[in-house]
């Protein structure tokens, strides 16, 4: 909290000062320096500018009593009672954060006929699941869902609330944050917590080129959304622990001007352009039927199969699955190239992938120049074993 003050007499060169601001928010108004509405309060002008030229004046703030807010809560994301797996991932993270500050982990679950689904959450180490079960909550509609959330927060007073960055979460969390005039940080990729219960929220900013660490120092509850597959789900315990609390809310709070007319299941889209995981295969594949093992590996990793141009030319795969300059450019989180030598025409289409594993028998193959993990070996030996190993670890 505070503001920037410009001391005109301490500016040796206005042009130099203007250059410091990455947002172009410092203006020269007829020899007088002014800060315009483009200012993001990054305070670089204070830190990097001439001494005393721009000052940041802290305003005194009344500190809230953080000890009144207790527990880390997770919003249970679901459609018609089917719990979205991001929920379990957030429970895992919530447990980790809660243990650092010795707080309980809560779940808030709203819907219709969901009581037994709530029981299941007790196998993941949640201390208390708060269930709001009402016909008006059958489908996600913003007004009743926000009303229930408000009721929960007022009743339980959690210090932090984690929400999955799904369609529902991205709609509901901002609504709740605005209602409590508190902070919400979207799409956090790293979460931690300070001793004073301030949630440390790290997210990509400016199109992912920069990471920003964000806190909500004087407001509670603190809200954060996290995308699916960013955190890890905890193991299911055979024994249930914790308890279920059934909550009531008066019907007149559950009105809505929204009417859900129909819910249509979506056809699963497949394609390599948006795939997060790709298993790509090239000329080392000896026959069309051997594609089966590549497909099996891709399926085990929830990914898609991609190929190089020679395989398209021999008619073994659809042209839509070709990676490279004459095919598609892909940027998955993981790509495993199998028996691909890595001509530039291919690697230009995939070298921005986050993690590149390359399996090739020839140690000198150019693919190893772009790979993060180069595996010198025969795909016919390694892939079947890898498939077995993944299956085994799934069963364990």
């Amino acid at each position, binding site marked *: *909290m505070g*503001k920037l003050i410009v001391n005109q007499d301490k500016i040796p060169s206005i042009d130099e000062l203007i250059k410091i601001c*990455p947002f172009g928010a410092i203006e020269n108004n007829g020899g007088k320096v002014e800060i*315009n*509405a*483009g200012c993001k*309060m*990054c305070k*670089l002008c204070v830190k990097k500018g001439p001494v005393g030229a721009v000052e940041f004046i802290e305003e005194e703030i009344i500190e809230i009593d953080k000890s009144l807010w207790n527990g880390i809560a997770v919003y249970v994301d679901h*459609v018609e009672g089917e719990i979205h797996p991001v929920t379990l991932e957030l429970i895992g993270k919530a447990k980790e954060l809660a243990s650092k500050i010795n707080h309980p982990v809560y779940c808030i679950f709203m819907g219709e006929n969901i009581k037994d689904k709530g029981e299941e959450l007790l196998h993941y180490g949640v201390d208390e699941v708060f269930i709001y079960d009402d016909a008006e909550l059958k489908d*996600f509609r*913003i*007004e009743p869902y*926000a009303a229930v959330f408000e009721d929960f927060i007022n009743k339980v007073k959690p210090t932090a609330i984690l929400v999955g960055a799904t*369609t529902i979460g*991205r*709609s*509901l969390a*901002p*609504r709740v*944050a*605005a*209602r409590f*005039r*508190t*902070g919400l940080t*979207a*799409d956090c990729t790293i979460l931690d917590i300070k001793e004073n219960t301030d949630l440390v929220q790290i997210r*990509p900013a*400016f*199109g992912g*080129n*920069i*990471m*920003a*660490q*964000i806190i*909500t120092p004087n407001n509670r509850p603190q809200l954060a959304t996290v995308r699916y597959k960013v955190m890890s789900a905890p193991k299911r315990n055979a024994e249930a622990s914790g308890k279920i609390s059934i909550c009531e809310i008066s019907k007149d709070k559950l009105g*809505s001007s*929204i*009417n*859900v*007319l129909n*819910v249509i*299941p*979506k056809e699963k889209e497949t394609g390599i352009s948006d795939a997060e*995981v790709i298993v790509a295969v090239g000329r080392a594949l000896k026959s069309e039927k051997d594609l089966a093992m590549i497909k099996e590996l891709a399926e085990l*990793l929830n990914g898609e199969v991609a190929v190089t141009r020679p395989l398209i030319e021999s008619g073994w795969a659809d042209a839509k699955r070709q990676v490279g300059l004459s095919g598609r450019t892909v940027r998955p989180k993981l790509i495993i190239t199998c028996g691909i030598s890595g001509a530039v025409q291919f690697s230009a289409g995939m070298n921005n992938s986050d*993690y590149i*594993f390359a399996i090739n028998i020839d*140690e000198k193959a150019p693919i190893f120049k772009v*790979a*993060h*993990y*180069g*595996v*010198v070996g025969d795909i016919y030996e390694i892939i079947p*074993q890898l498939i077995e*190993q993944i299956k085994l*670890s799934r069963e364990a």
Partner: protein
Amino acid sequence: MDILICIKQVPGTSKVEVDSVTGVLKRDGVDSKMNPYDLYALETALKINEKVGGTIKVISMGPPQAKEVIKEAFTMGAHDGMLLSDRKFAGADVLATSYTISQGVRRMGNTDLIICGKQTTDGDTAQVGPEMAEYLGIPHIANVRKIVEVKDKSIVVEMDMPDTIEIVEIKFPCLITVEKDIFQPRLPSYRRKLDIKDKEIGMISLKDFEDQNEKRYGLNGSPTQVERIFPPEVNTDREMWNGSPAELTEKIASKLKNLKFI
């Protein structure tokens, strides 16, 4: 029907780097443009307007030069526009931004439908629309992928969910945020560009608002604080693995496990 579109001026490029020595944010040039997602919101409004008539207004918040994006909206077909600009809005996070725009919207008079783009390319939060709706006390639907029907007192839309599509009817006044590709945005019209050359764009500052409590705007009205910015970790590993097939398999599997792919 009266429609209001929220638009934002964003940097023309997302190429920003942090100088690892000084920690200073480096931006290439100061080019700016309309947030590309807002073009879809604007096109949605134009399509609805072609069917049912009425007015299209745009609202934006930013420094004075953000008037440019309002002009651009005029050349596409918007009728009127206002810019919210005040030094006191500086340093606003999502909450303060949403509150500021909601005050501006109130100032602009009655609206049946507010349309926002899905998100901006510089903030990427997709939260301002829903937070504004809360401050305006109206319902909202996010991630709208299709307008099914515009009725007298309501609109029927398709909401995009991860595994389903929900057909939803929502009464006016309301706010929707639309997905990219809901409609193909039209190109600006040269004739309109000439027509609107001298058109005035209204400026609104804090003193025009209903709520003039400075503590609710800009940095003072922002509950979140950026503690630090830093370059993202990129995977700079370059490892070569040799060994027996069993050893290599083991290595791949354990790495994949570490990276949470298994």
